[in-house]
């Protein structure tokens, strides 16, 4: 019988992390080339920085931070849509927490709220259903964001709205898919990724099999990893073992949650309500065909982009020139290589999306920089003079 605390504490054992680190050091000495591991998911970036895992690794293993943060990859024009909707007097805009601080070209949803827009952040999508029921004379728009992990929740919300005849609930869909984004990074080639730590809560829904095409096409190991520090260290060891053997395969480290086929019930709900969107512009990665979802034909009467089309702008908006979120999301730059990191751009006053979300790479660097930072990066920094040493430790920030 396992205890609840074992499920978290058991995977945070410092001695174990040290042992795994030793194993990785022993094995990686046999490698002729360095390993560039992209941790696609922002949750993994957070774990790496928080627990200083980069300091437990040999020099020939490098992390490249990936585009797997739903808030970070949201282009400004989509945030502008949210603001345009919230400013309509008949609309209540509901969205998940982090979204309200991401700047679009017209400010943030938080600023929009200060100007009178009815914006309501929630931590449970089903709250949108209650808000719609409590405000029958208003139109409630759920601004839906997230990867495959979060799409089923939007599907349940839609299902319940239909079943309960809640006619005043609409959806602005921004659900995106991991495999096309990973494929875009690999096809671009500039990041020179040689292995992947696969997002695992995505796989809890989709199954781990979704990464097999990446392994087959690019011959890179993919290890689907849990989020605890021991999980990530073990996944790195599994990658190094593959590299030493000269093989590339899909493996699951997070066997306590992830199966090959995933959560079938959730997949069926998503498949019955969504269809692929022909094009979606990602922040950093640009337009990726068939990389996001849209409500299927029978639910178009709830699609805010159709219902409120007259109120929505239709123009791609580029990021601030000084902000390097785009390069960071493509694995081409580290947060501390950005000129505005820690100066013009901080978690309390973010300039770019990677600093807003707790899963964003810049946010993780800023928060934990004083605790864990590979000083080699400062020597390699090619742009600006932002020094990681200027960043406060988490303790100071939260004090």
């Amino acid at each position, binding site marked *: 019988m*396992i205890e609840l605390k074992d499920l978290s504490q058991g995977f945070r054992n410092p001695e174990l992390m040290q042992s*795994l680190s*030793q194993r990785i050091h022993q094995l990686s000495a046999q490698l002729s080339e360095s390993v560039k591991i992209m941790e696609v998911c*922002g*949750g993994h970036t*957070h774990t790496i920085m928080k627990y200083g895992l980069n300091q437990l690794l040999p020099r020939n293993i490098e992390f490249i931070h990936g585009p797997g943060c739903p808030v970070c990859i949201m282009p400004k024009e989509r945030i502008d849509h949210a603001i345009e909707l919230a400013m309509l007097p008949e609309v209540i805009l509901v969205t998940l927490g982090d979204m309200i601080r991401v700047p679009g070209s017209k400010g943030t949803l938080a600023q929009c709220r200060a100007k009178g827009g009815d914006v309501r952040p929630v931590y449970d999508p089903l709250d949108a259903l209650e808000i719609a029921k409590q405000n029958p004379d208003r139109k409630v728009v759920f601004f839906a964001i997230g990867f495959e992990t*979060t799409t089923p929740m939007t599907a349940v919300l839609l299902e319940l709205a239909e079943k309960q005849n809640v006619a005043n609930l609409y959806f602005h869909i921004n659900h995106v898919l991991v495999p096309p984004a990973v494929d875009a990074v690999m096809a671009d080639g500039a990041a020179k990724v040689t292995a992947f730590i696969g997002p695992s809560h995505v796989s809890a829904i989709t199954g781990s099999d979704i990464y097999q095409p990446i392994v087959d096409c690019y011959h890179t190991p993919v290890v689907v990893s849990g*989020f605890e520090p021991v999980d990530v260290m073990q996944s790195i060891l599994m990658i190094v073992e593959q590299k030493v053997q000269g093989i590339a395969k899909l493996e699951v480290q997070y066997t*306590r949650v992830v199966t090959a086929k995933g959560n079938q019930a959730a997949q069926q*709900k998503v498949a019955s309500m969504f269809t692929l969107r022909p094009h979606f512009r990602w922040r950093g990665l640009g337009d990726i065909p068939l990389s996001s979802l849209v409500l299927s034909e029978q639910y178009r009467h709830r699609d805010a982009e159709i219902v409120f089309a007259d109120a929505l702008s239709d123009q791609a908006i580029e990021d601030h020139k000084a902000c390097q979120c785009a390069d960071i999301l493509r694995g081409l730059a580290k947060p501390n290589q950005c000129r505005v990191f820690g100066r013009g751009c901080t978690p309390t006053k973010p300039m770019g999306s990677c600093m807003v979300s707790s899963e964003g790479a810049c946010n993780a660097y800023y928060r934990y920089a004083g605790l864990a930072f590979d000083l080699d990066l400062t020597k390699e920094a090619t742009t600006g003079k932002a020094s990681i040493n200027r960043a406060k430790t988490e303790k100071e920030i939260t004090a």
Partner: protein
Amino acid sequence: MCLCIPSQIVEIHPEDSTVTVDTLGVRRRISTHLIEDPLNMGDYLLIHVGFAISKINEQEALKSLEEYRLLLAEMDEEEARALFI
């Protein structure tokens, strides 16, 4: 968004497809609309924005922890051997 914390079922409410879970001392009610398998008291779930997305496989978790225990023992042995070299 993606950081789900393991939680344990302490009450089951079939009338509205929810359960009350304990997350390291904090109790809250969450949706089970996405779980088809039967749920029992004491089961461990992974929660994401108010929804259970997966049951946690207790056997697999125990297996991982056992693997780690063996690894630690092995590393201790290696270190002990190194003292005599």
